[in-house]
């Protein structure tokens, strides 16, 4: 009993500290995930020196092979507070390019550790949808959750390896500050009041990750030279890995294609 109590206290303590630190940087929140990763590359050097001079860049496009399924229509009529585009975001394909694929360096960094950036990553709820739909974050990094809707949401992540929680956020409530301690890919987050609301958080231990945009593009910067396994993960289509060797100051293009059958 006592032990768990103590553990809980430390967790809450850590949480409180992270809250404090996150509060300082509130202005900085409007960032796409791509840029976050870019920024994180620099502080990473502090933990394990990565010479920015030799840092390489990996980028590419993720394609979808086959006919994209028609996005399901969502009936939002049950809550008058929900307005906006009502299409499911499970597989978003535009011109053969697949969005919302989480790309990260899965293997090859060895035992390097990286500093956790102080900036919070923002998860916004508006139009009874999550923005972004797929989010990348470093373990321990603060996620700031906002509610821009005139209705109450509840944020309910259902992780496998992290602690589960479920908190309500009434309209105009203060943003929630949360973080995840352990690595976990495609950690589902949902709102119990709006069953269609769903997003995925990806928690990784390094700053080398990105999420493809509508045009299927991604970019990972600041990689030190080496051999890596890069993983492409999609919520429905699963994971695909690719090995890549990066030389100093390299600019590699790594493309990936998901097949329709994966569903």
């Amino acid at each position, binding site marked *: *009993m006592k*032990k768990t109590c*103590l*553990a809980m*206290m*430390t967790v809450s*303590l850590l949480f409180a500290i992270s809250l404090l630190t996150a509060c300082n940087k509130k202005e900085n929140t409007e960032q796409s995930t791509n840029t976050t990763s870019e920024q994180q590359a620099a502080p990473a050097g502090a933990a394990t020196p990565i010479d920015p001079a030799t840092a390489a860049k990996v980028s590419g496009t993720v394609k979808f092979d086959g006919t994209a399924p028609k996005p*399901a229509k969502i*009936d939002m*009529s*049950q*809550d*008058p*507070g929900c307005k906006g585009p009502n299409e*499911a975001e*499970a597989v978003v394909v535009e011109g053969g390019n697949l969005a919302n694929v989480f790309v990260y360096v899965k293997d090859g960094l060895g035992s390097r550790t990286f500093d956790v950036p102080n900036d919070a990553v923002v998860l916004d709820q508006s139009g009874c949808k999550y923005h972004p739909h797929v989010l990348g974050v470093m373990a321990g990094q603060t996620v700031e959750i906002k509610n821009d809707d*005139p*209705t*109450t949401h*509840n*944020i*309910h992540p*259902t992780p496998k390896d992290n602690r*589960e*929680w*479920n*908190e*309500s*956020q*009434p*309209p*105009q*409530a203060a943003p929630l500050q949360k973080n995840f301690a352990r690595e976990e890919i495609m950690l*589902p987050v949902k709102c*119990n*009041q709006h*069953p*269609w609301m*769903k997003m995925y958080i990806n928690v990784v231990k390094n700053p080398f990750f990105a999420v493809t945009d509508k045009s299927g593009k991604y970019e990972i910067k600041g990689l030190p030279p080496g051999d890596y396994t890069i993983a492409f993960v999609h919520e429905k289509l699963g994971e695909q890995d690719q090995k890549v060797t990066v030389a100093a100051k390299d600019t590699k293009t790594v493309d990936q294609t998901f097949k329709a059958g994966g569903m």
Partner: protein
Amino acid sequence: MPEQPIPERDPIVSKSYAAHYLIATLLLIATLFWALWDEAWGQRPWKAFQEQWKDRYSAFLNTSKSKSAASEKDVEKNPEYTTLYAAWKKASDDSAAQARQAREKLDDASARLLAVQSVFTDRRAYVNALTYEIETTSSSSSKASRRKDLQAYENEQATVVYPDGTRKKYNFHELEETYNQIRDQRTKLSLELGDVLKPVTAAKTKLDEYLSDHMVDLTPAQIDGLKKKTSDWDPTIVQINVAEANIVDRCESCHMGAREPLKITPASMTEKGQKKPDEYAQALVSHPEPELLKIHDPEKFGCSPCHQGNGRATTSVAKAHGNYEHWLWPLFPKENAQAGCQNCHAADMVLASNDVQFQTLNDGKDLFRQKGCMGCHRYEGYDKEPEDVNSVGQQIKQIETQKKENIKETAYLMKQADTATTNEEANQLNDKAVALRVANSKLDGRLQQLDFQSHSLMQDMKKVGPNLKDIRLKLTKNWIPVWLKKPTDFRPTTKMPNFRLTDHQIQAISAYIWQSGFTDALPKQKPGNAARGKELFETRGCMACHSMEHDQLEGGTFAANLTRVGEKANYDYLARWIHNARERTRPYCPYEKKDIGPEDYAKKGLPYKFDLDHSQCPNDGHELQVQNMTVMPSLRLSLEDAQDIATYLMSQKKQEPSAYAEASFMDDPALKEEGKKWVRHYGCAGCHEISGFEDEGRIGTELTFEGSKPIERLDFALFTEAAQRGGKDGEPIKNSENLARLPDGPAKTPWYDHKGFFEHKLAEPNVYDQGLVKGETEALRMPNVHLTKEQVLDLTTFLMGSEETSLPVSYQYKPGDARHDIQEGWWIVKKYNCMGCHQFIPGQKTILMGLKQYADNQEQLPPKLLTEGARVDPEWLRKFLSNPALSTTDTNRNGVRPYLKVRMPTFSFSDNELRKLVRFFQALSQQPMPYIPEQVPVLTAKENDMARSLFSSTAAPCLKCHATGDPSHDKIATAPNFLLAKERLKPDWVERWITDPQAISPGTSMPSGLFKQQNNQWVFAGPTPPTFQGYDGDHRKLLTDYIFQLTPEEQHRVAGSMGRARAAMQPAGQHKASRKQTASSIGASTSLGGGGSR
């Protein structure tokens, strides 16, 4: 013989023995030293352990201290700490001057007291002595003279030299007074000092408390304490001595770390440069479950009652662990350590400490029941209903005799009274007669209870295997012999074990069973829709117990794997079974030992109707067995649903039933008699209901105390030697499949112990027949239960712990309070596999949680029951458990959570089981029984308005998720209707629930953070409706009270006001067709869960 030359000097006289003596003496001295060394060191290997402990633990403490110091720094950075620190600092600064002054005064007073005291005590002694003489002198003259002496002495002036050098003279009385004065003064001063210092100590205590509360580990100061303790340690025997239980355990003489407050692992005790933790590092660790030690205080329980071993012995590791030939209780090996729990907790089905389950033992207990071990082996507590039925029957007989005697006695007494000589005597006799009649009436009440009891017990009796009386109605005939040959070939996960039957035995057995089965006609069932059946099968919760294997095995192993059920089953029977598995073909009368048919009912002119309410035998009025003895419940499906599922299941096959070879021998009456012999020989009736074997006893050994059987009584047969010696030829199991069942693989070391015996027996039950020449009826009968490695380990642990305990009764876990209710409840929870759907212990995984369809859809999982007893009214719970639909007409749904596709089944619990279950849930949540409902205050109109506005505000849209009874809304609801709350819930629980539901049911859809604490009140966290202006009451309480007073009309009104006019105006068509609700809700679910499922 050649004459030897005669020596010059007489050898006898001249021979010197000096050298002999020298050597002998030296040897003697050496031996003495050896004996001393042996006593001091040779017999005390623990000294070496303690030396190592001092070295290694000190080193470990040094490293943990630096860690602790770092975390202390972190805590100290905390603003709260800084405030407290500042407060302490300020207090101590403030009081410093005052304190110094007070201390000086105190010191001065003490010195003066001392000065007076030294003179005073001396004089007082003289006065006392004189007084004594006065008291004891007899002559009055000498008394008088002594008195005078005393007087003179008391008046003498004594000089006191004060510390400041002043001298003062006092007579005795003045001296006494001065002494008392100064003493009182000093007391006052020291109190004053205490007052001055009080705020400082208080602040300091607060500061220290804060530190130790906020440190995960020990504080550096605490670690320093440990370091000092360690370095000051003198090697000595550490022992726990409890005379009451004859426990003398010196285990901690070597296992020095066992009770240390820090977590010590072998790695942390490994010396630098060592690769692997050595013997010392392994021994010096802390106890892996410190929580357990809190419940089982080592000062009372010692070590050996749980771990066994020879607690007294300190001469060698082997001796201390009891690993030698003549010690009856050797240490349980690490992997079987939980066997120790069984010693006292044999009656507990589930062992959990601090919500952590003891999985190995719990699984062992489960397996023993699930695999039907108790069908052949008696084990105290398992499957005890048949025994209870017997004892109840006996009690009934006894009471009946008693009653008869009483009646006789009454008549006799009354007769005597009539002829009594005096009225007094007559009255006395009459009184006695009256008392006896009252006694008889009480006995009648008792009889009634016993009748209920036996009714309950009949209902509670279950068999592990199916009822084979129905075999002709249920099964494909030709499939039966194939199944008997080797059940695992057909269904690898079946509970049916592999008997080693010859073809002839198979033929005989199947012939007997077939020919003794019922031949009644079954109602024909309409064919159903397989696709819908599949849907229902996967969503109604069938898979909490049953499994299906397409790509991989999915579902529970509690009941059968249905992958190939289509090959063996009869559709008509299957549909009926799914509709209500408890429905018997014919009731059985245990009194007549006969299956009762319609003809028996017809004879008495009764309708052929039998169920739990019609359970009396038409022939003799005795209690009938009216249900199938299966734990399979009724899911309250409509007949069409059952037909759909049955159709789906019938499609599950790998080959056509017609592909099985014709088994015409099953109709051969000649084989029947022989078959009966084999059915009896193999104890089939232990698990199955078979005609002619209803009262068959168990064929195996009783296992209740199997673990304490002397090893000589375990028959290793030809492998005794091999087991004792181990080595490469020590492993008797040759079959690779069975070999894989051994938890540690093929034996390398000697395995002549209980563990070795059980493991080998379980892995290959006939292993000890190997090499023996035996007749077919003499060979070991135990079938191969095809266990996995882990299961063998679990069961071995269970059996090893099944010992006759030598501990006094006060040590055994035989609670008489609510904990007993918990014990009893777990048996039922396990019996019906409640844990397949519900979570009872945090972290416990249910079968359903593991299913794919719930991975993204957890709100569709059955509710967690972590605090069920605190949540619901026990009376309501009883009603719910006996009828989960909460309705007698509209039963094809869940009573509380109609939005769940998974169905809470009707288990037809007996009154007995209902009582136990309700008590169990209450006890599990520490709720008192009986429950007296809390009175909810009636809200004023204003409060009602406020509560309503909160209840319906967009910030707390309760009715968005909670069902309202409006079908169009309820199809998207994910929480129960508030109208149920009044009868169902406990108000205090509701308050806790709406504050932090995650703490009560982790992962629930109900969000936390709705309320926040403000001025010792819980207020709504979101924007409060304007009506709350100026309200300073507790919002949480208000809302709860409102919910408990909610009427259907109010709810309807609120729902309507929440912009659900459209929903409310839905065509009434859907409303009335409640029977169709299943279909519609399924339809809804597909569109709804579209994102997630399948």
